[in-house]
């Protein structure tokens, strides 16, 4: 069952005007079974069969309303969609406010398969529906179909809605060549050229009087043996030279962006620093979640 005028907007409240209900194929079969039992009951003059036939008819009438009540008065709204990658199913948040118990609710976005039926108690619910975005950039997920056949599957009640909130889609992650610009080779104005040196464990630098909390492995044993007192060694890390990533000029831009997306994901996973250089914008080297998302957003919106 998939027709009817779709609703637009950030929120939509399902009511008589925008809910559609029709018997399913099973519903028509059910009616045929009712007629069959009625014929048997009349022919055999059997009260039990007649009552069962009337019972099935009244179940048909009853479930017409019960199915409709599952969606009647439900409010649909968009959550704040988190960005996702193109090429993978992306979760899209949908807020539902149910005035009563809603049984067997299925949500379907775009051309995806419907999700499993959900039984929702009254109240607010935040559900996610997966969809496959067509490419990078800001996208609206397309048509949301909300439908239910509960309790008996005799009727299908559905509604259609275009959720308003757009979702940011990063380029798909695909491994491939990326142009690496040397870190700090071309510092941009207003940014520190070199990351500050920091204490680490790579190079021996200095001695300091030993403190009880210092690790015994740092104790300068040679000096201690020479009777010159307890000293702890101090070491220094060389700051890594954070590469600046740029699209490979030999590839089409979209493919290059996909490689960049994978590289950024990879570097972030390994905890490395990186920067990004795109035509028209650049992101200074750094690391962390916010940095990653900034870089990926830059990729998504790159022209």
């Amino acid at each position: 069952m998939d027709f009817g005028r779709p609703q637009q907007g950030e929120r939509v409240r399902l009511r008589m005007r925008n809910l559609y209900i029709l018997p399913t194929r099973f519903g028509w079969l059910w009616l045929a079974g009712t007629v069959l039992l009625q014929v048997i009951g009349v022919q055999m003059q059997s009260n039990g069969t007649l009552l069962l036939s009337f019972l099935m008819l009244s179940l048909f009438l009853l479930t017409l309303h019960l199915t409709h009540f599952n969606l009647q008065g439900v409010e649909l709204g968009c959550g704040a969609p988190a960005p996702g990658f193109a090429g993978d199913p992306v979760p899209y948040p949908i807020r539902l406010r149910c005035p009563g118990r809603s049984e067997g609710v299925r949500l379907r976005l775009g051309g995806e398969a419907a999700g499993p039926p959900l039984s929702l108690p009254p109240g607010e619910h935040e559900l996610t529906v997966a969809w496959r975005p067509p490419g990078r950039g800001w996208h609206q997920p397309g048509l949301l179909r909300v439908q239910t056949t509960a309790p008996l599957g005799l009727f299908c009640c559905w509604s259609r809605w275009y959720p308003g909130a757009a979702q940011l889609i990063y380029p798909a992650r695909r491994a491939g060549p990326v142009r690496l610009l040397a870190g700090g080779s071309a510092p941009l104005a207003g940014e520190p050229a070199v990351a500050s040196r920091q204490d680490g464990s790579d190079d021996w630098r200095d001695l300091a009087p030993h403190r009880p909390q210092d690790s015994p492995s740092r104790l300068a044993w040679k000096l201690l043996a020479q009777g010159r007192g307890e000293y702890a060694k101090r070491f220094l890390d060389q700051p890594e030279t954070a590469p600046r990533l740029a699209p490979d000029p030999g590839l089409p831009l979209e493919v290059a962006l996909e490689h960049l997306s994978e590289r950024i994901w990879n570097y972030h996973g390994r905890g490395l620093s990186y920067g990004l250089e795109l035509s028209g914008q650049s992101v200074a080297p750094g690391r962390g979640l916010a940095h990653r998302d900034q870089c990926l957003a830059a990729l998504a919106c790159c022209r």
Partner: protein
Amino acid sequence: MSRAAAPLQWLTMGLLAVGLLGLSPALSLSLLAFGLAVLTALKLREARSLEERRLVALLQLVGAGLLAALRPELGPSLLQGLAILLALAGLLALELGAGPDWKALMRRSLQVLLAALPIALVLFLLLPRLMPFSNLGTGQGMGVMTGLSDSMEPGSIARLSVSRAAAARVAFPLGGGPPPLGQRFWRVLVHQRFDGRRWRSTAPPLPRPAAGQPTPPPPAAPGEGIQLWLVEPSGLAAVPWSGAGRPLSPDLTLQRSGELLNRAPGSQRRVYALTQTADPGDWRSQPPGPIDLVLPRGENPRLEALAAEWRRLGSDRQRLNAAGSWFRSQPFRYTLEPGALPRQAPLDRFLFETRLGFCGHYASAFTTLMRAAGVPARVVSGYRGGQWVQPVGGSGYVDLRQADAHAWSEVWLQGEGWQRVDPTAWADGDPLASAVTTSETATGTAPWDWLQRQWWGLDIAWARWWLGYDSEQQQALVQRLLGDQRHLLGLVVLLAVAISLAASLGGLGWLGRRRSGDPLRLELEHTLRAFARHGLAPQAGETLPVFAQRLMQRWPALAGPLNAYVANYQRQRFASTPSRTGRRQAQRLGRALRRSLRTGNLPKEAVQREHP
């Protein structure tokens, strides 16, 4: 699809299979039911998708409906009801996702079923009945099951085994009762053809189907009683009756010989009704034909010689009396193990040598004697006696077993019509005579028998109220409800369906709302509503103890229950683990508080109003 769906559907299949067990395979409709069940089981086995499983549920429902047509008795009906409930639960399990467990599914299925029942009952009770489209399906499939058969040859039976299997039950729902035990003869078959050894019935084994629609006989007049019969499958078209009364069911036809034929298939249990009147039916005055005197001469010479003496007597009545006094003068003894009689002159051997036999021997020999003496006579078989059972609640009934099967004679007396003569009563050791003297309590005192009788009492009530609800009952109900406003029936049905639909939906909605929420909070809200009716409600930001203070100022008498209630509520509200006993106590205290609010404050208010 819930995990419970598959087991539920298999369980339904099992119940349907159990329901199929009692069907006779001869009936074409039961073959259809078998086939449907097998196909459904196969479909269920291979079903993977939701649509296929739904189809299985529908097939199961249709199968249950078919079974209901074939086995309308109380026990099978309960089984079918359970199967329907489970089939619905299976269907619900298909729709409700993985969540709900068995108990929740059964509860929900019961809720939906009960909600649909009022509408179904309105349609069932009020919609006018259609008559069957044709007479297909009746009159076929006669099995052979009972102690009665349309041919009787006592001489070939050396030993008669007694079966306590149920044969029939008759109730008298409109009052009146059965005749006294010694007079209870329930006739079934009339055997007129005699070939020297075997007595045969002249009735057709299968009654002719009525041409066109059977016209329903007029209903019982107000003064008449009703005998309601429930006969176990017998394979015979002839069914028992008391010999007096007028058929009330359209299936029945009364033969000139006094046999009552039922057109419904004999392989099924049959239910029918007759009026209960004291005056005998027309069949008694139907004059005998030549067939009632037919006797193969020379078979039993001593018997014929004896009868020839009586033939010289003037009237039939005198011949009958002579035969009676002769039987009583001889040492006849009743036994179930008389031994087989020879093929040559069997009745001579019985009458003059062994003098041992059961009812068939006596009826056969006596009837032959009467025919030889020139009195038209015939053998009648049926049931004799039967125990009067009064179940706990409900009307009593006469319980007939196969062991009550009996044969007796009827002789035609000029001016009196056919008269019943039971020659077995002249023999020594007749079981009925001893039953009359020792009253009826002799048999069946075991608890199992008691239970069985109660069940049969329910069964006969079921037959009366459920199986007996037919087109006429429906018409009578509509007549009672609407009087002469029958043209409004359509409107009334629509209205009643709408009202019951609204009531069912309201009820389901209430059930859905009722359980939601914290029970402690629900209890508090219930109590607060009671105070709100008196115009006192908590203000915004007011805590329960402060509000209680305010209430106590208004109703000082409520201080005790209020304090207890508030203290308990707070204890439960802030308890680390909410306990069931605490909730119960909250409910008890709430009830006490509301009761004292109802009873305690009203006089006080009245006093306050008097002195403003």
